[in-house]
């Protein structure tokens, strides 16, 4: 390792233009005032700078540091810990496909694969028109609506590959798109402003899509004596007492596999989940060029 450059360290990030800075400062002071300790405002402020530029830039990190009397290193350490802070310019619409176990099994893996092919992008990549950033996400607390797709963190429940492809086509064509639970879509920047703690001011945004979704209401409907769809030909295993007379495989043994043994899937089933770049390995990271790892 002899060819390490020992030149000038990168200069501090440029500041925002004066008018932008003044506007953001007013917002930041409002956020900071909500907390007994100013540093608590850091997560909201990172959402705030993301609402300005669409991702967390070196300028945004500098702004947060100055508002909270922290170093840029301290702010960078926090911003890289959380997955919602984007590290590079991304699309107006962040399309996240849940590929945690339950959604993946119910079809999330198929949806994610088809969207990658349909859009011609990989995980955490943006279409050339700058409209859609595709990523796989973790469980989003909507398992009773699986498989789930989130666009700018609004719920698109019970998706299929076809409905998801239609969804991204509509987003790219600028056609209006409505979530199953949530408000009419705004851009990712507008969403980030809500996350920073500034309520959505759009008329009807809070009311949009009404009350609880259909799955949230099934228990209540049953308790009121209503019938659920699905009929009565369901299969539930026998009680323990009946088990001896049951012909089923003994407990613990796997059930008969659905496919032929020995047929390995064509691609590695979980290879889409590569670790994200660390700041040391990512030369474009807002923390600037860093020493090689291990030095």
């Amino acid at each position, binding site marked *: 390792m002899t060819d390490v450059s020992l030149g000038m360290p990168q200069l501090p990030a440029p500041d925002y233009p004066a008018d932008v800075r003044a506007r953001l400062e007013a917002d930041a002071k409002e956020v900071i005032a909500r907390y007994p300790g100013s540093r608590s405002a850091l997560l909201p402020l990172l959402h705030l700078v993301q609402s300005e530029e669409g991702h967390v830039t070196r300028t945004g990190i500098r702004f947060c540091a100055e508002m909270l009397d922290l170093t840029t290193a301290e702010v960078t350490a*926090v911003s890289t810990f959380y997955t*919602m802070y984007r590290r590079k310019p991304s699309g107006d619409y962040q399309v996240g496909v849940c590929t945690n176990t339950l959604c993946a099994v*119910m079809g999330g893996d198929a949806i994610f694969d088809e969207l990658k092919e349909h859009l011609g992008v990989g995980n955490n990549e943006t279409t050339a028109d700058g409209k859609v950033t595709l990523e796989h996400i973790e469980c989003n607390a909507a*398992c009773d609506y699986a498989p789930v797709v989130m666009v700018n963190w609004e719920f698109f429940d019970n998706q299929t590959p076809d409905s998801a492809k239609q969804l991204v086509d509509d987003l790219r064509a600028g056609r209006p798109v409505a979530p199953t639970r949530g408000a009419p879509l705004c851009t990712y920047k507008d969403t980030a402003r809500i996350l920073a703690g500034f*309520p959505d001011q759009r008329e009807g945004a809070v009311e949009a899509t009404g*009350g*609880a979704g259909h799955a949230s209401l099934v228990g209540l409907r049953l308790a009121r004596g209503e019938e659920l769809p699905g009929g009565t030909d369901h299969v539930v295993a026998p*009680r323990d007492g009946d088990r001896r007379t049951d012909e089923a495989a003994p*407990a613990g043994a796997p059930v008969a596999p659905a496919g032929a043994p020995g047929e390995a899937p064509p691609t590695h089933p*979980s290879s889409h989940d590569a670790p994200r770049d660390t700041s040391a390995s990512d030369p474009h990271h807002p923390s600037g060029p860093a020493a090689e790892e291990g030095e």
Partner: protein
Amino acid sequence: MTVSTEYEGASRPEAGGETSPEKLLAPVLSAFWDQPESWTLETYRRHEGYEGARKALAMAPDDVIAYVKDAGLRGRGGAGFPTGMKWQFIPQGDGKPHYLVVNADESEPGTCKDIPLLFANPHSLIEGIVIACHAIRSSHAFIYLRGETVPVLRRLHEAVREAYAAGYLGKDALGPGLDLELTVHAGAGAYICGEETALLDSLEGRRGQPRLRPPFPAVAGLYACPTVVNNVESIASVPAIMNRGKEWFRSMGSEKSPGFTLYSLSGHVANPGQYEAPLGITLRQLLDMSGGMRPGHRLKFWTPGGSSTPMFTDEHLDVALDYEGVGAAGSMLGTKALQCFDETTCVVRAVTRWTEFYAHESCGKCTPCREGTYWLVQLLRDIEAGKGRMTDLDKLNDIADNINGKSFCALGDGAASPIFSSLKYFRAEYEQHITGKGCPFDPAKSTAWADKHLEVNA
């Protein structure tokens, strides 16, 4: 074997004592989710909203704590710690500010109760916060909501605005000279922040990494001040207890696990969704009343409370879903996230994906979890792809054993649970992947649309 269940009339007890859904379910928090604009203050008031707070504010704070303790309410976020006891641990007269922090960072795989609750009925949480802050003598509460659920954030913002305007929050909210501030704080995507001390670090503007205990949050929590951290559902259950009485609450569930709770049914079931019932209902009862598994399929494995609770099989359909019942059967009630998978699902694939999640979400603070989850993923990916060896199975068990109980926080224990339990019940299926050089399952058959496709082609 097929169990067909038809409900005629109110009650038709069968061999195991099943009765009608009207008798088995107990909607309290979800009782008016189907009403127009269920999330508004007006609708909430129409359903006895803020009556519990009115009664609680007329009581001495210590009496409220004793009342909640007597009711026997236990934490609904997973651990099941008695809520009233948590409040009692707050030192009084210490001259420091006290804080209430509501953990709304619902991210445990499979868990989907707090998000629908807050979407449909956010005021039940705010009323619970008013009561809890009165009890622990706090003048500032926080709701730490996971950031990835903007529709819920919108309704929380609106509900808090309404509550301030109505005087339930703000100046003199808890009585003359006793103000109450409530701050809604959106997280930024980190499962670990559901761990209460990591949540506190995150709320202080740091990386969300768990803290060493002691000191416990009740002594040194947010800003090193006495802090109660409670789950959304725990706090939201308090108003009904205050309003309808501890005897009413104790009339549901069991002696040690009293009350009602939200069970979230998901996966290969005919009717996934929220089922609010007294603690102690069984999965069989829930499946029987709700249409069972999807037609033509049978239950293979399920989690009683999210992916961090050891999985069950169809042997466990009659386990009482309360803290003691699930514990005695070798798992944990957790968040009551009943993820049900049928026979088309590859258990190795399921466990691999969960383990990838734990590896991704491991905060990196402690070595057993950071390194252990990484190596579990490497082994599992190999096994799933048909490149594993038989000795890998013991190695999996060994690594999981080196994480379980030896990591800094419960994330590591959670990562070990699916490994241990799947090897216990489905070791033969792992072996099949190794001897057969690959996965014997067709993932297309597990999808939500798999059988619809068959019907079209039939």
